[in-house]
């Protein structure tokens, strides 16, 4: 545990990639494989066990520190990191905790995996009394900065500032394998045991290769003018679907649907798994999961409702059916074809998935007859059709139409490009439609977390409904550090009321809010949900009464959906 904690703080204290890789290499090279496996799953952001709720942990810490709970909450609002807050308030020597004085064993030699089992995994589902006893015992065993790391582990929220690429690089240096081989293996395998880790860094081919997806190739946002991309004949255009990126792997070892976050999503999308049975053995498709009824495309919010579930019931399957729209073929008949040009891969893709996806959002909200149980390939698996345009200007016109089609814009891909990995600029561009914008007024603010702790940077924005503000979005990003500091001061001096960490402010600040789309919503008081809201700029030149009204926003919704 101590070594892992040291690694955590080493990674935290440097911004140098080389130093991070060196720290990782040293760690993995010096710990037993079962610890390496354990650390790796944390570093790669695998789903963690939440053994103890943060509520219980803060209550117990408050009592151990002999502080009222509200003071712990206030401290948390100031620090912006619960694990750190609790470690800072806990007494170094926990003498006031009664019972189980326990042997303060030298834990420096204690292995991480053993420690994780004993103080995290085994606590899951145990009665609170038992958990509490374990928590207090663990506090006694750890130094303050180790407590921070453990708090993060035990509440299932340990995120470390390293990318998988860096981890793969460190393991590559250690094992002598290629970083890409490691990246692929890390993606496919669940690494839990010593054997898992050993086979990960083994120079022999391993069994996990069976369902391994390929690292995703990521497009870059279009920054310059499209005309600068050269002749349009060298490019193909597709719609940029507003769904979830995924790979379908169909091999003799079985079928797997992988998210970009490298999680297996078979359980959330059983109908896609069934449909994939019909694919030839040795096929890997890259594409997008979308929610779509037989006749129309559903908004992203419906899809995300599904994706968050471990199991989907009949009702969800019927109400939010999923489809997979493939736009690339990475493996055909068991052969990796990523280095072939896109034009070749596209031809092969069309041979395997012949039907193009043409659904659009319903223009009228009428009830649609549902079809359940109809699961053949043709109405689950599609390819992403090309958007035709003889000139860049013609494509530009098509892009203008994107929002009405329920897509985010266009994807531009060079027809000669191979399927690279990671984000490499030049061959794949996302050319999103210009965002929608309105002016909104700040009415609540809350202190940020992490880097923004102590600064009021989480804004709730509203538009006018008569002389009342109605919330339409929460927005964080889009302002400079200097602006954040200045706005923070204004928020402090215009606070009307405080509810815990939330401040209600006098409406004085106006922000230009950018968003991708609007849709109706029953969850929001305003009746409208905005997609991807972020602050475009601070409108110092506008007074609050010049901001938008709810009817402006409703008009926008009508204009886009035709409702």
């Amino acid at each position, binding site marked *: 545990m101590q070594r892992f904690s040291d690694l955590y703080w080493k990674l935290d204290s440097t911004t140098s990639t080389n130093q991070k890789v060196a720290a990782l290499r040293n760690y993995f090279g010096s710990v037993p494989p079962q610890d390496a496996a354990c650390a790796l799953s944390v570093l790669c952001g695998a789903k963690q066990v939440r053994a103890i709720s943060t509520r219980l942990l803060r209550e117990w810490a408050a009592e151990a520190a002999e502080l009222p709970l509200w*003071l712990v909450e206030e401290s948390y609002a100031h620090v*912006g*990191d619960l694990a750190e807050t609790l470690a800072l308030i806990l007494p170094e020597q926990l003498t006031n905790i009664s019972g189980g004085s326990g042997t303060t064993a030298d834990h420096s030699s204690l292995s991480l995996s053993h420690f994780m089992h004993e103080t995290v995994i085994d606590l899951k589902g145990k009665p609170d009394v038992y958990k509490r006893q374990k928590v207090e015992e663990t506090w006694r065993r750890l130094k303050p900065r180790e407590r921070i790391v453990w708090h993060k582990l035990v509440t299932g929220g340990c995120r470390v500032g390293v990318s998988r690429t860096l981890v793969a690089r460190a393991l590559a240096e250690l094992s002598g394998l290629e970083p890409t081989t490691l990246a692929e293996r890390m993606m496919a395998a669940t690494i839990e045991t010593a054997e898992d880790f050993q086979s990960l860094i083994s120079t022999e081919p391993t069994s996990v290769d069976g369902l391994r997806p390929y690292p995703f190739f990521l497009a870059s946002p279009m920054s310059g003018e499209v005309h600068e991309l050269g002749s349009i004949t060298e490019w193909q255009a597709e719609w940029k679907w507003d769904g979830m990126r995924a790979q379908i792997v169909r091999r003799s070892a079985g079928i797997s649907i992988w998210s970009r976050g490298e999680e297996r999503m078979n359980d959330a999308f059983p109908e896609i798994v069934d449909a994939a049975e019909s694919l030839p053995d040795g096929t890997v498709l890259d594409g997008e999961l979308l929610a779509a009824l037989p006749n129309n495309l559903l908004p992203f919010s419906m899809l995300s409702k599904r994706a968050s579930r471990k199991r989907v019931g009949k009702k969800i399957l019927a109400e939010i059916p999923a489809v997979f729209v493939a736009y690339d073929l990475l493996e055909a008949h068991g052969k990796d074809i990523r280095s072939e040009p896109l034009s070749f891969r596209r031809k092969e893709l069309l041979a395997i998935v012949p039907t193009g996806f043409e659904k659009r959002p319903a223009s009228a909200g009428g009830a649609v007859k549902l079809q359940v149980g109809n699961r053949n390939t043709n109405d689950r698996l599609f390819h992403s059709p090309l958007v035709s345009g003889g000139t860049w200007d013609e494509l530009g016109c098509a892009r203008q139409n994107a929002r009405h089609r329920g897509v985010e814009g266009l994807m531009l891909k060079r027809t000669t490009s191979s399927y690279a990995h990671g984000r490499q600029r030049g061959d794949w561009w996302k050319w999103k439609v210009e965002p929608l914008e309105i002016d909104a007024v700040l009415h609540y603010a809350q202190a940020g977390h992490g880097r923004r702790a102590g600064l009021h940077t989480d804004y709730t924005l509203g538009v006018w409904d008569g002389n009342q503000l109605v919330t339409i979005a929460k927005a964080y990003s889009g302002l400079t550090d200097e602006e954040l500091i200045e706005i923070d001061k204004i928020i402090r001096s215009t606070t009307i009321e405080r509810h815990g960490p939330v401040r209600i402010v006098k409406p004085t600040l106006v922000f230009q809010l950018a968003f991708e789309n609007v849709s109706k919503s029953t969850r929001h008081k305003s009746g409208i949900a905005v997609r991807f809201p972020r602050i475009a700029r601070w409108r110092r030149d506008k007074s609050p009464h010049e901001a938008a009204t709810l009817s402006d926003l409703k008009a926008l919704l009508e204009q886009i959906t035709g409702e």
Partner: protein
Amino acid sequence: MSDLLEINPNGLYCPAGNFYIDPWRQVSHAVITHAHADHARPGSERYLCASSGKHVLRTRMGNNATINTVKYGEHFSIHGVDVSLHPAGHLLGSSQVRVSHRGVTWVVTGDYKLQHDSTCERFESVPCDVFVTESTFGLPVYRWPEPATVADEINTWWRANADAGCTSVLLSYALGKAQRVASLLDPSIGPIYGHGAVMKLVEAYRASGVRLPPIDRIPPRSRKIGGGRGIVIAPPSAAATNWINRFGETSIAMVSGWMLLRGVRRRRGFPKGFILSDHVDYPDLMQAVKASGAQRVLVTHGFTDIVARLLTERGYQAEILPTRFIGEERPDRSAVDKNLEDDLQHPESE
């Protein structure tokens, strides 16, 4: 019933004695707890401070200011009000102001700390009925490490840099912190240098009889000063200017109580931070309140609402004493920056 001390537009005022403590504006009689910019402001007719703080206050108020001094613990009368100054432990010559009239005693701490600091007089607990305390670090997350431990950390860091031939730069307030930090350095590692703003006050400290290790002015146009074994003490504002580039390869560390929080360290972009503060931490604040014997506590400068609420729950009559800032003031990021920028507003650099 009117209070012995009250807030008016000029600041904290004693109506019975017709004087102010750390006034915000120019007044006729100002009793000064210490010479930091948010406590001592120029332009008042007469200043009164502890005798050991005279040189320091002079560097800040200028040659024309009228400064009277009094020894710690010496009682004197202002229009029949009994006044005395007592060490606050914040920096050289910093005082708590004890004001007593008609059987009621108030103590105004100014800024203070209970920790050991060889460059100033140690905080002395003064019994009172009403205790006015700062609360800059009044949250239980703030508990300072032992200064000796921090000194070891600083010297270890400096030695490692010196061995690598990389000049060390310590950022700290020019007044108080810089001299305290200097007193913790081990001069056997290498030469110590001070930024101009720091040197001016180093001289004031020496003139007041404080022992400090040898500190030199920075030689002109020198890269790798002291052959890369040197350490430079500079105000934080200097880190943002070209001034820092003259030393070639440097390792920079901030010395501040705020460095206790990981978020602050990361946000400010300081690769290294040392936790050393001249303000009272949470446990010492609670201890100081208890030791004062006061039943009524006024909380100012910092986490006022939180400390006042906590003290109320613990049976004190606790209130917030407003500062001159509009609305409440919390030592969140804006205050960190304000503190760091204090030195910017006083360009006593070369």
